[in-house]
């Protein structure tokens, strides 16, 4: 069973609003054990391997033979999980949007000021 759409691990991390640090696979088990010892993480090396090995599910038969259509897409289901379990990451989508709006607003203000100055020089 699977919903529609593919979600990459990197994408899932971003949707959860967490920063990501790519590590070579050999170093990841060492760093992982440090993090576990420091009680900062609770995932096993097996889980890491499971997550970093990409997979897709062919849902053709689920639709044609079983006649089942999932209500949510992969992304929607994951977002619901994030909402319920791990909100308020450092790079939370809402926070990023606030920053985006602030910069857009700032630039708009700047360019309109530049325009006013030009307009003044014309008059």
């Amino acid at each position, binding site marked *: 069973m699977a919903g529609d759409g593919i979600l990459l691990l990197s994408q*899932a*991390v*971003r949707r959860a609003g967490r920063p990501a640090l790519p590590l*070579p696979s050999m170093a990841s088990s060492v760093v992982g054990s440090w993090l576990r010892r420091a009680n900062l993480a609770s995932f096993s090396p097996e889980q890491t391997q499971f997550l970093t090995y990409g997979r897709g599910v062919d849902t053709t038969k689920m639709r044609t033979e079983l006649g089942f259509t999932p209500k949510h897409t992969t992304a929607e289901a994951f977002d619901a999980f994030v909402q319920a379990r791990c909100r308020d990451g450092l790079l939370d989508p809402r926070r*990023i949007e606030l920053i985006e709006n602030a910069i857009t607003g700032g630039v708009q203000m700047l360019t309109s000021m530049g325009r006013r100055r030009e307009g003044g*020089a014309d008059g």
Partner: protein
Amino acid sequence: MADETPPDAADVRTPANPLDEVLELLGELVRTALGPDADSRVAEGLSFIRRRLTGDYEVDLFGFDEELTERVLMPMVRPLYKYWFRVEVRGIENVPAEGAALLVANHSGTIPIDSLMTQIAVHDEHPARRHLRMLGADLAFRLPVIADLARKSGTTLACTEDTERLLDSGQLVGVWPEGFKGIGKPYTERYKLQRFGRGGFVSAAVRTGAPIVPCSIVGAEEIYPLIGNVEPLARLLGLPYVPVTPTFPWLGLLGLVPLPSKWIIQFGSPIPTDELGTAAADDPMLVFDLTDRVRETIQHTLYALLTERGSVFR
């Protein structure tokens, strides 16, 4: 607009707040740097960055990230295409505007830059701006960074399942059947086509009824003339070869700059396969003949293009 207004009226109207002055200047700078539609362009760029940071984008089931390819990866490669190799494209009308097709090309150049150039050629020169979905060797997917970039730019592993799935969904698929035998051949063997695998790509095209478009690439052979191979090191690293070129490794990183050869990419007339029927895909004689026909077409086109090109660099 009163004629008597002194030219410094604006300054009189908004008397000297140094912060405002600086902000106004900044605004003008932004507008001169980004053009009159600065607002919308900044907003567009920021929204792109926000979507990337928050994972709000889509990849298809092969990991192809269309937005990243169009907005980041292709613009990075395009200067090489336009100004360094000055790629000339011929017969782009032979690439179907829609539906499945299998583009088969010769492979050369030590590093597979020819596939990147073909991808740009198809996207930029074709009116339908199609994306070429490339088939890559398993080595490409074992290298860090390269593997991710290859996936994101639309490459998948050259295997029957993926090829047929792509063709079945009406994609334009690119394959370089010579593989490492092609890109890793010595400079003295340039433009001599190597063996075309076992014809697996032809079976896939026949099974899905996709036309085969032969594609001949001139110019890639000269970018890194391969004059030697550090075999022990290659074996140690598990690579097919560690190249020695006139500039690499002698000049260090500078040796990685490709020579600016003049490129011509010619797309030949498509060879239809839909009349052969699905069963023909399992007929070894037919597959062999068709493979040979594609190979011969590319080889002859290469020779014709070479005599026409004359100089390597012009």
